[in-house]
């Protein structure tokens, strides 16, 4: 019963099992050839008596958040999708043509230039004499010697050694880091930062600037020539502003934070500006890129592009138990540091045998496509689950990420995945990334 409850969330709705507990118990009993007294029911917790309607009457509030570019997405025909309390464009076009729109947008970013609204990405300003030390203690990587003008990948574990968030730390000055966090994770990370800062008493100020900055990612092989039309005070050449470089400059007179990033695996620039200028920035970039065929792309397209590059999304490709070793992120751990949150747990976990790993897999075009959550099998047992899966037009095959048993993780292995209707497909484990393994495109 407890497993059924956790997998189905039955009993966790507004009635708290008042209507569903007994019928569920009967279903489980019938499915397992037992009686309800044998299966039991889920644990009942207060309130034990019915709430009066008067207690829950009154206005209902359902907060939502919109980026400064929200109206532009709607005007461009975006299919909007929820991302927590945010609303984001999934892709641009009719909802029933998701696959076509997404594939077209992805191919366009790979061949020309695209623009995506990344304003929901968490943004935290960490400032003060102890800023580098603060990040050194909070994230697994090392930041003390990070040069000004560069960004560095940042992976965070909790005290149990579980991966809870990632982002980049961009160093704009010796005592100023701009740290990004996942859309869904930033509030938690901000609270973590305040908690640890209160405990460590370092000389550092932490400010959540997520809503204060509008941000876009201008991505694709033509992105540099588009940006050159609107940004004149930063040398955008590959030598002067290389991959993972960060710069402060202006875009059409707007103060901007510019970051060379590679999430989608192409030459790309994240441009972060004060929110009041967000719509003007979007309009200006769309206009500047018109002759180069610029087009907007959505979150689902971005997820496909990053999947082609094998980049994990924390909370989609990780769960509440994922350790750095399971997702091949041990390279992001600075071993020489005396401390970071979770260090002791990570070291203990690394001494134990790895039981599962996140692997890349492929299936030929036309095969039954696994969905997120479908199970990876190991004989009669379950060894993992699919976390991401899409058809890639660029690669001409189905690609995905899945947890599999450690012994199934070698490239070339076949992993059985149970898809819709009980069919089992044999997917081939491959080395990541799927696309551009030398990372040549993002470092142009």
């Amino acid at each position, binding site marked *: 019963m407890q497993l059924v409850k956790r997998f189905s969330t039955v009993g966790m709705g507004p009635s708290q099992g008042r209507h569903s507990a007994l019928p569920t118990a009967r279903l489980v009993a019938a499915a397992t050839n037992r009686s309800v007294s044998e299966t039991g029911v889920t644990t009942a917790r207060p309130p034990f008596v019915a709430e009066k309607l008067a207690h829950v009457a009154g*206005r209902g*509030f359902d*907060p*939502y*958040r*919109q*980026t*400064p570019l929200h*109206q532009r997405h709607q005007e461009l025909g975006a299919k909007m999708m929820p991302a927590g309390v*945010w609303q984001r464009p999934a892709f641009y076009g009719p909802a029933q043509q998701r696959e076509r729109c997404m594939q077209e947008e992805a191919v366009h970013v790979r061949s020309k230039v695209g623009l995506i609204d990344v304003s929901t990405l968490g943004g935290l300003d960490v*400032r*003060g004499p102890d800023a580098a030390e603060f990040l050194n203690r909070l994230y697994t990587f090392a930041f003390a010697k990070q040069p000004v003008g560069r960004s560095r990948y940042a992976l965070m574990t909790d005290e149990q050694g579980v991966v809870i968030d990632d982002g980049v730390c961009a160093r704009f*000055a010796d*005592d*100023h880091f701009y740290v990004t966090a996942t859309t869904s994770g930033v509030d938690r990370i901000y609270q973590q930062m305040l908690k640890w800062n209160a405990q460590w008493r370092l*000389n550092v*100020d932490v*400010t*959540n*600037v*997520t*809503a*204060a*900055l509008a941000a876009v990612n201008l991505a694709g092989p033509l992105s540099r020539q588009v940006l050159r039309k609107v940004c004149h005070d930063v040398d955008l050449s590959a030598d002067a502003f290389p991959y993972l470089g960060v710069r402060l400059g202006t875009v059409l*007179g*707007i103060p901007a934070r510019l970051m060379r990033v590679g999430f989608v695996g192409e030459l790309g620039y994240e441009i972060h500006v*004060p*929110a*009041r*200028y*967000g*719509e*003007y920035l979007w309009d200006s970039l769309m206009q500047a890129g018109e002759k180069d065929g610029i087009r907007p792309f959505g979150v689902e397209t971005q997820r496909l592009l990053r999947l082609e590059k094998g980049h994990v999304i924390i909370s989609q490709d990780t769960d509440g138990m994922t350790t750095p070793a399971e997702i091949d992120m041990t390279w992001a751990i600075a071993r020489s540091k005396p401390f970071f949150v979770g260090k002791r747990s990570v070291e203990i976990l690394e001494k134990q045998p790895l039981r599962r790993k996140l692997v890349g897999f492929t299936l030929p075009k036309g095969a039954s496509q696994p969905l997120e959550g479908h199970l990876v099998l190991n004989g009669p047992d379950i060894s993992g689950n699919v976390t991401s899966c899409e058809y890639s037009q660029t690669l001409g095959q189905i690609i995905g990420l899945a947890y599999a048993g450690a012994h199934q993780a070698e490239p070339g292995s076949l992993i059985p995945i149970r898809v819709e209707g009980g069919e089992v497909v044999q997917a081939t484990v491959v080395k990541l990334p799927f696309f551009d393994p030398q990372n040549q495109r993002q470092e142009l």
Partner: protein
Amino acid sequence: MQALDPQHFTERSPLYRKHAGACFGQLGDSAIVASYGGDETAQAERCGLVDLTNLARVGFRGAEAAAWLERCGFSLPSAPNRVVTQADGSHVARLSQTEYLLLGSLTDAGKRVARAEADWTFGTSAVYLLPRQDSHAWLLQTGAHVAEVMAKLCGVDLRAEAFARGAVAQTSAARINVLVLNTGSCALPGFHILCDRASASYLWDALLDAMAEFGGKPVGMDALA
């Protein structure tokens, strides 16, 4: 002020599309509603809502923030959760022992507060600038019913006897975090309400919904002149 299109300016309020049909005037590099039409002075005295999001505001935090602001000529509240109105009509609120929020005045189109922001340089002392103009939307609720309207959205008692002029509440309204500053006068009661900028559209609609039973409507800058 003359009729203008907000989309012709580089700075835009997240609410400008809510003001369709209004007459806009220029405020720095942005457009702000001058009036929606009708007798807005009476409307403001009864129950009005103004979008001040394009008016300058900024925050400062740090051990030396108070000293720095005093050097800039601002009078500071003596305790947290208090707000002091300056001689030029701008406001300084104290949000903690070491954090302050400056709200610009319509009298000088927010220039004094914008200047304080421009004069700040990073790294000179333990004073950190907080980009409140971009992190927060700024609404002004006016009229005789301000406390009754907020009672429908907020659990804090904001009636005059409990929340007098000069008081600041850091609370939640309609389930989102807000700052409420009572800077009103006997002639025109008013609460400044600052909320997450990305939630501006949501709170604007929630406030107008709560104001409806009192005949509440949006009003423009001209009503505050």
